[in-house]
């Protein structure tokens, strides 16, 4: 109920249109309801009483009424379509903007496939509720009440007899709704399970093939598929118990009327025209009963969908900028971590991190996998909020920065480089759509990507990504670096972003970057000593803590983990 109320509330802006549509619907129902009455007049006045001059006026009336009905029905239909389309448009774009505001944590926990099915299937379900179900429910309710009134006015005795079945219908509907609701939920979950199963199989196809696990995969898929079938058929069963029952109840109304009419005729209390009229109303009255199961079905469906959508909508963006957010005049890239502690899902990831990166410095971060290196640099753009300590950039706490201006100053190259299905040029200027080709080419050159792009079939206009040409890991990484260089950031983060690039190219990239990012603060996460040794400060992370810090020379002298790494790596690079 709460959900329906909420949908109705969201329809407020369309109040005028809805009222108009409802008025038109009244016209439709009224003209429909009046037609058995006209039939009665035709039978009584024209046929029984032989007033043949009444025939043409009555026929004209039928035509005029029909015309009114048809026009109103058309306009009403279009109004509902318009309202529902606008509503869906509004909800979809609003949710999209909301999803863009969601923090990284949201995307850690929700799969893309799941969000997709909310934004498409579920949203369409809610739209259907507005376009058809509400309208249908209103229509049928009006039809039911209206034909009752007309019947009552024609023959209250017959009406009361027919009404005897309505409590049974109400009871059945209630039970139907109660059984079908949990079933719908189960069905939806099973659909999601099948979806995930398939998606993973397709995404991990190279592993499946490498281990010859096709049969195993098929078995698992079949299990989910059969389970889905089972739920679907369960719903069929419920449906098949309910729908025919409603049908039989409504069709029994006709013989009931006949019993009543026969008695009344025997007592001479009803004329033949009224009898015909009442029969017409009976059919009008029973149709809403037949429709009831459909309406319950679609409303229940839509409400479960809406619940899921509203759940998303209610998730507040946990990372928000404060009212009086500040933005420095110019960013210099002065970063200070002051006793920063960060936990994720109650698991400590970073503990008591303190260091300072002065403008223009290069900070290198090393450490074992899972030691918190990537997390540390994502804190800079405030993609997660820290629990303890402060992180300031140019003297302002990140929590007090205006978010977007802050992020615009950070060029981030992630471990896994994601490219969009677009041209290489547009991928490079992703963060600065207005940039011209000259700048794009310059960034590509810095990232050592120029050469391979020039070799592409359409150069910078080659479409890459999911729907385009596949690039190798190293090529993707270089485009991603160019993308970060493009925005001319005050802070550049390279998160293990040259792992798929060979050493020579990496060296060249570093040389170029040095030039371009002279006064920029750079954070480098890397495993190779060669990538970090020139840094102004090297941090060694272990289990979320800084265990060693200093320059290359200082750390060598300390003779700790870093020294060990240098020895290991030098020993394998052979002097020629």
């Amino acid at each position, binding site marked *: 109920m709460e959900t329906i109320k909420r949908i109705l509330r969201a329809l407020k802006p369309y109040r005028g249109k809805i009222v108009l549509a409802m008025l038109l619907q009244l016209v439709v129902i009224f003209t429909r309801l009046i037609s058995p009455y006209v039939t009665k007049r035709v039978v009584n006045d024209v046929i029984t009483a032989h007033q043949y001059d009444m025939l043409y006026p009555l026929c004209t009336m039928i035509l005029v009424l029909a015309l009114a009905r*048809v026009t109103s029905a058309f306009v009403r239909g279009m109004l509902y379509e318009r309202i529902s389309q606008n509503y869906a448009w509004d909800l979809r774009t609003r949710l999209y903007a909301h999803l863009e505001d969601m923090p*990284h944590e949201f995307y850690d926990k929700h799969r893309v496939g799941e969000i997709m099915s909310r934004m498409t299937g579920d949203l369409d379900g809610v739209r259907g509720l507005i376009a058809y179900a509400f309208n249908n429910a209103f229509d049928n309710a009006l039809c039911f009440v209206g034909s009752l009134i007309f019947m009552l006015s024609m023959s209250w005795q017959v009406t009361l007899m027919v009404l005897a079945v309505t409590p049974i219908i109400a009871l059945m509907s209630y039970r139907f709704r109660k059984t079908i609701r949990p079933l719908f939920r189960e069905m939806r979950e099973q659909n999601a399970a099948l979806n995930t199963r398939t998606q993973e199989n397709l995404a991990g*196809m190279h592993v499946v*093939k*490498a281990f010859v696990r096709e049969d195993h995969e098929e078995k698992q898929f079949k299990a989910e598929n059969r389970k889905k079938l089972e739920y679907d058929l369960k719903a069929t069963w419920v449906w098949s118990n309910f729908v025919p029952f409603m049908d*039989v109840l409504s069709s029994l109304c006709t013989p009931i009327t006949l019993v009543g009419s026969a008695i009344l005729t025997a007592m001479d209390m009803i004329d033949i025209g009224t009898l015909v009229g009442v029969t017409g109303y009976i059919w009008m009255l029973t149709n809403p009963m037949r429709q009831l199961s459909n309406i319950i079905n679609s409303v229940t469906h839509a409400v479960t969908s809406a619940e899921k959508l509203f759940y998303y909508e209610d998730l507040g963006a946990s990372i928000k900028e404060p009212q009086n957010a500040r933005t420095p005049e110019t960013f210099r890239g002065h970063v200070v971590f002051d006793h920063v502690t960060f936990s994720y899902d109650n698991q400590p990831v970073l503990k008591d991190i303190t260091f300072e990166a002065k403008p223009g410095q290069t900070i290198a971060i090393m450490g074992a*996998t899972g030691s918190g290196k990537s997390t540390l640099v994502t804190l800079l753009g405030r993609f997660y909020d820290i629990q303890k300590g402060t992180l300031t950039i140019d003297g302002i706490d990140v929590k007090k920065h205006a978010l977007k201006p802050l992020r615009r100053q950070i060029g981030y190259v*992630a471990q896994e480089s994601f490219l969009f299905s677009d041209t290489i040029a547009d991928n490079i200027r992703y963060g600065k*759509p207005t940039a011209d080709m000259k700048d794009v080419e310059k960034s590509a050159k810095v990232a050592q990507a120029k050469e391979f792009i020039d070799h592409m079939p359409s150069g910078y206009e080659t479409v890459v990504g999911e729907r385009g040409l596949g690039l190798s890991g190293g090529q993707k990484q270089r485009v991603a670096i160019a993308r970060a260089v493009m925005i001319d950031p005050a802070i550049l983060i390279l998160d293990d972003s040259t792992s798929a690039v060979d050493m020579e190219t990496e060296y060249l990239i570093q040389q170029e970057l040095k030039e371009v990012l002279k006064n920029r603060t750079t954070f480098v996460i890397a495993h190779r000593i060669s990538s970090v040794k020139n840094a102004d400060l090297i941090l060694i992370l272990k289990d979320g803590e800084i265990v060693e810090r200093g320059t290359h020379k200082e750390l060598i002298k300390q003779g700790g983990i870093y020294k060990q790494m240098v020895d290991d790596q030098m020993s394998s690079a052979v002097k020629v």
Partner: protein
Amino acid sequence: MARMIRQLDDEALEKPFNKQQFFRLLQYLKPYKKKILSALLLMLIAALCSLASPYLMSRAIGSLQNKELKYIPFLIAGMVLISLIGYFCTKYRIRWMDTSGKSALATLREDLFHHIQGMSFSFFDTRSAGKLLVRVINDVNSLNELFTNGIVNVLIDCVTLVLLLVIMFCVNWKLTLIGLCIMPLLIFILFKLKRVMRLRWQRVRVKSSTMNGYLHESLTGMRVTKAFVREDENADTFRNVNDDIRNNWMKAVTINNALWPALDMTGVLGTVLVYIFGVHFMQQDGLVLADLLLLIWYLDRFWMPLNTLSNFYNSLLTASASMERIFEIMDTPSDIQDAEDAKPLPPIEGKVTFDHVTFSYDREKTVLKDVSFDIEAGKTVALVGPTGAGKTTIVNLLSRFYDATQGKVMIDGHDIKTVQLDSMRKQMSVMMQDSFIFSGTIMENIRYGRLDATDEEVIQAAKTVNAHEFIMRQPQGYETEVNERGASLSAGQKQLISFARALLNDPKILILDEATSSVDTQTEMIIQKALSELLKNRTSFVIAHRLSTIRNADVIMVIRDGQIAETGNHEELIKIPGGHYRSLCEAQYRFMSADED
């Protein structure tokens, strides 16, 4: 708005209805023939019953008009009987049709999935996972309505229409003709409109699939979007895509909305004509009131089936689009299949031979040119060379993810094209650049390498690759749930898990394709120690950039431009003055010690 929707439109406009494919689809219903035929019979009975009801009512009114009550109880009994028959017919029709249709679709889905499992890499190179997912899930789902109700309803509607016509003609053929005289015109207009309608709905479908594509990608790349603050531009694009959908939808739905009123109006015109002429006939030809009412009531029922029929063609076209996409996949043969006389590969030693192998992905650009080499069983081979030189292609050919264009790849002297694929791949393990984690527990992920491995064996494998320690640090140890993107694991941890997975398989041939690039130095050193133990009785191919990984190999092959430029071990290659390997080592050493003062 530079980045627009130019490459977003998913599918081109659909072709007209394909009959052959439709019949092929119907084959899936064959096993349920009996059920479907029984359901059809039930529906026929139900249709007859629903037609009988107005007939009985009109007779009743006729009797009541003459105050004859003796037939009334029989008529009432008849109506009750009809209702009850209708009840059973509907109930079992729903059950039988739904069971048949949905089971048939489940089978179709499984067949499709099975076919996809058998496809080779070149198939997946050209199709995104997202699109294939839509085929298996959405396209099959969209056939549901057609299978469970669509076809049968249409048959019944046709029968109903014919029956109605017959009865109406029997009751009074003149009035029937009068009542239906406008129908030919209506049908003509209806079919004219169909074409416009079809095209408009096709546009709506194209636009929605455009939106889905855009949405999918922007959700996948949301982290990048946020990092580069592109939210506003993307929201604009999304709004434009949505505008497109809304506008096209409104255009398409206008015709739909106009259809029913048009039918309704035609019906009323017919009714009015029947009244006028009916009254006339009553005076002249002795038409009775009961018959007149019966005609009017039947005429009322005439338009509904007509409307459903006209909608059916539309839904048939939608289904036909899905159908075509499904069969397109099912008709694509896998280009890597067991030869007919393929024998299982006996347990191998691991000797690998490339005999004048040439390969091209697209039959235009040659990736490997005339590559020949012999590797003794148990040796470790390192492949070195710049990106795109063909290193990955060599190992892909060895595991027969692709077939060589020319030449032969042999294992222990067996041409791999002549042995059963399964028996061969079961004896190798391949580890790729990006390690894939399935959702499930860590235990399950490692066990993927050998399904019958015991927990102890899994743990042993994890220990060997040094993954045990970090796994035990996870909240539930080996029972920790991880998901498809391995969100809670770092790239290095994911690699360690896939290492353990490969190890558990205990392969004779091991392929590591840059599998260690994201592992930190310490971990890599430890893994390498473990691996050197494990590589003892295996032939292994290692692609890596780090010399540390390479130098201990028995054979180092330098690949350049699809050819082997140098072969030998570290000591041999380093001695070649001006050699590729030597200069590579020099460069790395210089690089390592650069600026060291």
